[in-house]
């Protein structure tokens, strides 16, 4: 049994007077009710007859040919047999598909390479930074080592002031700088008395056992100044005293104590 409300909706439906939502709801209800479908069918026939109740107006005669001409191409299109598989038509599309796939693969690969390069560039940058840090640390260490070596070298150095032991040359002064590690040194003296040509001054290093070791001979010019680098003839564990004696030309193996002119430690 169809109630009045559904009859109203059916009437409005066949007239196209329902809104979009109402029309959808009604169609749904109609699908579930054969009785409602029958009513809509009957009412649709009413509107069909009603449509024909308008004054008769014939279309222009030439319109017939136009309408039939519009249908004719569609007829030919529709009459065509189902398209067969033709490689010539398929190949360009297949090629295009393959090209698209290749492009996609290459693009992906390129992206991967870019990411990898970017990552490795970052690593290289980090390593460079680390290298710079290490270099700076190395330089610091080298400077530290150099400073330590210098300190160590200074520790091994021995400076000795030698004073004059003779009355007629009280202004004579001399200094020795001894490097115990290298076992060599420098002797500098001023205001030494000039010696006859057959005599020389001889430098001695007195070791820890109070044994004199010859460290070299030198001759003084008229100005009384001398600078000489020296190296004793044997190992000196600890240099105790430095002394200078006046000897015969070329020096002697043992110092002549009565001719000692300078000494100090």
């Amino acid at each position, binding site marked *: 049994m169809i109630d*009045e409300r559904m*009859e*109203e909706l059916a*009437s*409005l439906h*066949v*007239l*196209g*007077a*329902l*809104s979009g939502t109402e029309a959808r709801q009604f169609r749904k209800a109609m699908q579930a009710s054969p009785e409602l479908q029958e009513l809509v*069918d*009957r*009412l*649709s*026939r*009413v*509107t*069909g*007859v*009603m*449509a*024909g*109740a*308008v*004054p*008769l*107006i*014939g*279309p*222009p005669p030439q*319109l*017939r040919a*136009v*309408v*039939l001409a*519009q*249908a*004719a191409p*569609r*007829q030919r299109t*529709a*009459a065509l047999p189902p398209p067969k598989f033709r490689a010539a038509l398929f190949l360009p599309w297949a090629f295009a598909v393959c090209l698209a796939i290749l492009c996609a693969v290459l693009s992906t690969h390129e992206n991967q390479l870019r990411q990898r390069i970017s990552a490795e560039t970052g690593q290289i940058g980090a390593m460079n930074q680390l290298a710079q840090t290490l270099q700076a640390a190395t330089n610091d260490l080298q400077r530290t080592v150099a400073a330590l070596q210098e300190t160590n070298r200074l520790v091994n150095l021995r400076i000795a002031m030698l004073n004059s032991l003779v009355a007629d040359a009280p202004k004579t002064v001399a200094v020795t700088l001894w490097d115990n590690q290298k076992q060599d040194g420098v002797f500098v003296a001023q205001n030494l008395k000039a010696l006859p040509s057959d005599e020389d001054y001889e430098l001695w290093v007195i070791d820890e056992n109070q044994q004199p070791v010859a460290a070299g001979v030198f001759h003084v010019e008229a100005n009384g100044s001398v600078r000489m680098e020296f190296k004793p003839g044997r190992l000196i564990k600890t240099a105790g005293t430095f002394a200078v004696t006046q000897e015969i030309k070329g020096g002697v193996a043992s110092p002549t104590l009565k001719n000692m002119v300078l000494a100090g430690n």
Partner: protein
Amino acid sequence: MNLSAQFDFVRWLTALDEIRPGKSSFLIQPVKDQETRNQDIELLQRVGARDLSAFAEFYDKYASLLFSIASRILHDASEAEDVLQETFVQIWEKADSFDPKLGTASSWAATLARNRSIDRIRASQRRARLQNEAGVENATIAEDGETANSALYGLEKAKLIQSALVQLPAEQRQPIEMAFFSGLTQHEISEKLGEPLGTIKARIRRGLLQLRDKLGDLL
């Protein structure tokens, strides 16, 4: 403007003398018998099979009906021609989907033409003007003379249909025409006529059911 005055169908009521309640089955004979329906169905099936001669035959049979509907709705001959072409192209393409269980071929084609016309109105800027004209300036259903139905059913049977239509009370016929021929919604009709929505719905329902009962076997 007094709308009800525009739907004063007193002049047509003389025709109602021939159609009285309870006599519809006597007065309206089955003018379109099953054989005619079957012919139309067969014709549309041939159209659906891309038979151009069947399409031409269908055109000859229904072009006047469809053109009359489009002309009446659009009030423009040029646009009506466009709608006629579009409608027949649609018929050509959709004939194979026509379901005879859902109505006659003529009502199906008429609905296509009507819907295309209404769509054209809704898509244009003329909607407001046509709404104003709807059911006011012109009564849609012909008072007399030859109608599109006469081209389908013959002049005598068409007059019987016309009588059944014009005997509807104006208050029922007017909202039906406004909806069907002007594409107005129930709300627009209610607003246009200044009547409650429920009243409009009820009048439309009663009008269509009355037509269904009076047209009887013709449908």
